[in-house]
């Protein structure tokens, strides 16, 4: 276990060193996150005023805050790693991962990181702070404990989709698509029309990964929700492990 933690720390430090070279880009990401957050908040209030969302504004900010954190996590960690994974497949350098003594999926999940999502993470924390009146103390602790497993569920789900990288050249747009799908959880899934609700709950785990931590924090869901999330992590991990072994058979290295 200590070995895994050391690998995680080393790859985070290496990624930070690479990305701090582009400071103007970080400014642009900051501007983008500000504009997008302003848009999300304005849209939230417009939806509440139009009666489309049956929520108090404070509760809406909690949903939005958790979703911003998920979006920031996708931009910081999920997107860069999925792209790095698909690059390894088409360059034929996946061996460098497969031959190491740790689990290849773990190594692929912690290859790199980017600071571009940091502004979204900050925005998420600020939105949660603004909506704090809707939170109870005990529920808030439960909600923050749930964010970790919720993000893991989303990450493993996205990685499952990215296994398509074994058969297709690029996954950039797939990453866009998955990030956008999870962003749909910025509003409670139950506010959507029935087919969308089913899709966002059972086909893509948006409800579990984005709504559930917010609902735990708002006291709408009991502690069982937290157990459910960890069960989700276990199921998605087993699924990822199996499907990765299956898909890696399609990998033919640099000569294939």
């Amino acid at each position, binding site marked *: 276990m200590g070995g895994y933690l050391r690998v995680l720390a080393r790859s985070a430090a290496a990624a930070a060193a690479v990305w701090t070279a*582009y400071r*103007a*880009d970080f*400014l*642009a*990401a900051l*501007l*983008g*996150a500000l*504009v*997008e957050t*302003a*848009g*999300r908040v*304005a*849209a939230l209030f*417009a*939806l509440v*005023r*139009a*009666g*489309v*969302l*049956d929520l108090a504004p404070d509760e809406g900010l909690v949903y939005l805050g958790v979703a911003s954190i998920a979006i920031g996590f996708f931009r910081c960690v999920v997107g860069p790693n999925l792209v790095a994974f698909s690059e390894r497949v088409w360059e034929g350098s996946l061996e460098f991962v497969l031959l190491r003594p740790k689990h290849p999926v773990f190594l692929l999940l912690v290859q790199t990181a980017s600071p571009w999502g940091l502004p979204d993470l900050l925005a998420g924390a600020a939105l949660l702070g603004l909506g704090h009146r809707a939170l109870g103390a005990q529920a808030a602790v439960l909600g923050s404990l749930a964010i970790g497993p919720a993000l893991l569920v989303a990450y493993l789900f996205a990685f499952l989709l990215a296994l398509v990288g074994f058969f*297709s*050249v*690029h996954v*950039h*747009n*797939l990453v*866009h*698509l998955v990030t*956008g*799908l999870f*962003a*749909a959880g910025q*509003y409670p899934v139950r*506010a*959507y*029309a029935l*087919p*969308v*609700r089913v899709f*966002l709950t059972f086909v893509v785990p948006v409800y579990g990964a984005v709504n559930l931590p917010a609902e735990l924090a708002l006291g709408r869901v009991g502690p069982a929700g937290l157990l459910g999330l960890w069960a989700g992590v276990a199921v998605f991990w087993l699924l990822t492990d199996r499907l990765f072994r299956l898909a890696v058979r399609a990998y033919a290295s640099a000569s294939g």
Partner: protein
Amino acid sequence: MTRRFLLGKFSVLVGTFLAQNLAYRGELFFWVLAQSLPLIFLGLWVEAGPRPGLDYARYFFFAWLAGLFRPTGVADYLGYEIRTGRLSPLLLRPFSPVLDHLADQLSLLLVYLVLGLPVAGVLGALFPGILAGLEPARLIGYAGFLALGFAFHFALGWLLGALAFFLERSEGFLEAYYGALFFFGGLAIPLDAFSPGLRRFLAWTPLPYAVYHPAALAAGWPGARGPLPLVLWTLGVAALAGWVWRRGLLRYRAAGG
């Protein structure tokens, strides 16, 4: 150089880029799907919005289509060509690289429209009659808006791409613009839900004319405005892009300069 010569070359360029872009059709399909995500928000309005569901389905359909008429790759590709020196061979040819990018984006648009058919089909199946009873005059105005939006975003992409002559990277600012367009342009939410003050402010920006006004016009909603501000924005941005491009070329020393 006669006009016929140019048109002949140009159609060859479009054909070439079409073949190139079709090679990535799987990847581009994911792109079209990612562009279709705002349609999820239609599920909110159909469930509890004050208008009939079909009104919202029409609005979101036309907003989605207007979003596809947005050349998104120009700034990225041009910046990449400038930084890596790949621009040099393009400059040796007897026509401007603008035509390369225009041909590329037009062929991409064709691919998007074909790949978007399944999405339109799903909408049509969920909302029968979505295209019935539309006014032809409004649809012609909508088409004009689309052409203008394409021109504006092409010029904007050219401006930000050409900034690569002077800056290390500039594409991040385009991302910020697209973030604004998503909520304040009308892709994710019809703008008439916003407060009047915010809408008066937005009327000065190009954002609502790229998506909201054309979609509201085609869907038959009241309150759609004419495109004059976007015409002015397009002219201004295009003039600025041309100026930055010419100034940049003077500094350009290709790779190794």
